């Protein structure tokens, strides 16, 4: 029987490996250097990383000792990973809809990758208490009031719906 901890390591390495590859390819897109396949690599690797992300999250939750979120690192990990996943899905859908791969598109892709790599780095700090990202204030969690989150959810849903309608039109 493989423990959740081992599965988490496997899924995390899959996720981070693909996100890192995507980040390098997006950097090449930004610099307009390298092979023409950089765009395909950036987006397919991002998709692969996104597919592996839920597995990493669920195995991570099972592997964490105790119940619930009892550490600010875990809370920040959740916020960062969902933000990163949102940006990544936005990037992929935008590309699917025929969006240009301009400097802003590539930059958003790199921001998404950077957030996911930071999330993984925080996981290392949580389990081993060691990190290179010592300068990031990970002990502080910024939580919106529930009403603000609900407004943002409505806003996000409206934006997604609007873009879908525009595209269909």
């Amino acid at each position, binding site marked *: 029987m493989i423990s959740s901890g081992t599965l988490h390591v496997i899924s995390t390495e899959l996720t981070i490996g693909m996100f890192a590859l995507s980040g390098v390819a997006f950097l090449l897109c930004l610099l*307009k250097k390298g092979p*023409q396949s950089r*765009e395909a690599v950036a987006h397919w690797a991002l998709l692969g990383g996104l597919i592996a992300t839920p597995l990493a999250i669920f195995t991570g939750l099972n592997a964490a000792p105790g119940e*619930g*979120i*009892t*550490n*600010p690192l875990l*809370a920040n990990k*959740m*916020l960062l990973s*969902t*933000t990163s*996943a*949102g*940006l990544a*899905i*936005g*990037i992929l*859908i*935008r590309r699917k*809809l*025929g*969006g*240009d*791969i*301009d*400097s*802003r*598109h590539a930059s*958003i892709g790199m921001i998404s990758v950077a957030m996911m790599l930071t999330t993984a780095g925080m996981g290392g700090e949580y389990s*081993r*208490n*060691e990190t290179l990202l010592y300068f990031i204030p990970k002990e502080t*969690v910024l*939580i*919106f*009031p*529930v009403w603000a*989150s*609900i407004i*943002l*959810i409505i*806003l*996000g*849903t*409206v*934006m*997604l719906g*609007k*873009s879908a309608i*525009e*595209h269909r039109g």
Partner: protein
Amino acid sequence: MRTKAATILLLMILSSTISTANPGGEGDAVQSRDCAGSCHASSSTNGVSSANLSIELPDEIYAGLLMEIQTSVGNVDVSSNSMVGMAILINSDGAKDLPANSGWEIITDPNGGMNNYVEITGSFSSQNVVTKSWTLRAPSNPGMYDLFLAVQHGSPNGGVAMSGISSLIQVEVSEVPENLPQLAPDWTPMNIRNLGEETTIKLETLNTDSATVELKIGAEISEISVDDGEFTIPAAVNPGVVEWRVVLEGEGPTQTSPWFRLTAQEPGWEIDETALYLQSIALFLLCAGLVILRRPAGDGYQKNYHDTDPLSTGFEVEATQVTDQVPVALTQESTTSAGPPIPSEGLPAGWTMEQWQYYGQEHLDKLARGEIL
């Protein structure tokens, strides 16, 4: 350049240290002795610890009742962090060796948890003996049981993970005498409390007429009254441990429980998880929406800017300067929506218009620099 990079890489690889242990420990846990690669690499690479290991048992151990044992670790030189991992086990095989496998229950470990493996940072040395207390519940069936004390630690010079295990210690678990005043079999003491909070503990007893609680803070022992089976321990001002035990009197012989340890600690970090989950969903949707809402280039869509515009302008100037070197003449007509002007001989072989829009300027730049013939 490649040679320099390879040299730097080689130096970095050679500068790494080789270690078979996890110097910071793995944290307290319920775990077998054969933790293998998780903390001390393969057991075949471990050294043998010189530690003297012993377990001190109470005179009488009754089936299903709480008891206290003392584990001692002496004559051991450890690494600079003075940490020793200590485990209570039931065999030395490295498998199926958890105390729970033969019915033991860890009620309180030396660190205030409920684990069979704990990491102790103390004054370990070849001249010193470190003793720790464990509260266990004995197996519910009388009989003979085996216990072992195992340790894992580093070495003074580092690099080698040391492992050791005590000799077999046999434990006789007796039938509970009739009418013996005792704590109820399913009663479990509290191990942890928050600072600044009084702690009320409810005792559940059997065959008991009266109970008295003794509270030990430091070396001082005081009595606490028990009303309706409940007693209150005063709030702690600082993090630390208080110990208490109960003296039970009834028809049978008077019984004294083991010392129970109550650790006061700072209140744990808490968060409104509903707000956190909602915010996560909100950020996910908002970020996805914001990115997608950046409208894609399409027919009839007038963009406010385009990345290639300034580059195209630059190229026109550059092209006039390198006309003699580059055998490419440009048509005057520009493309309709994006990309640089198409060369007079048309698109490069195998290129689509979309590729030209994205990569055309880069292609022309390379031509201008002579990178493509």
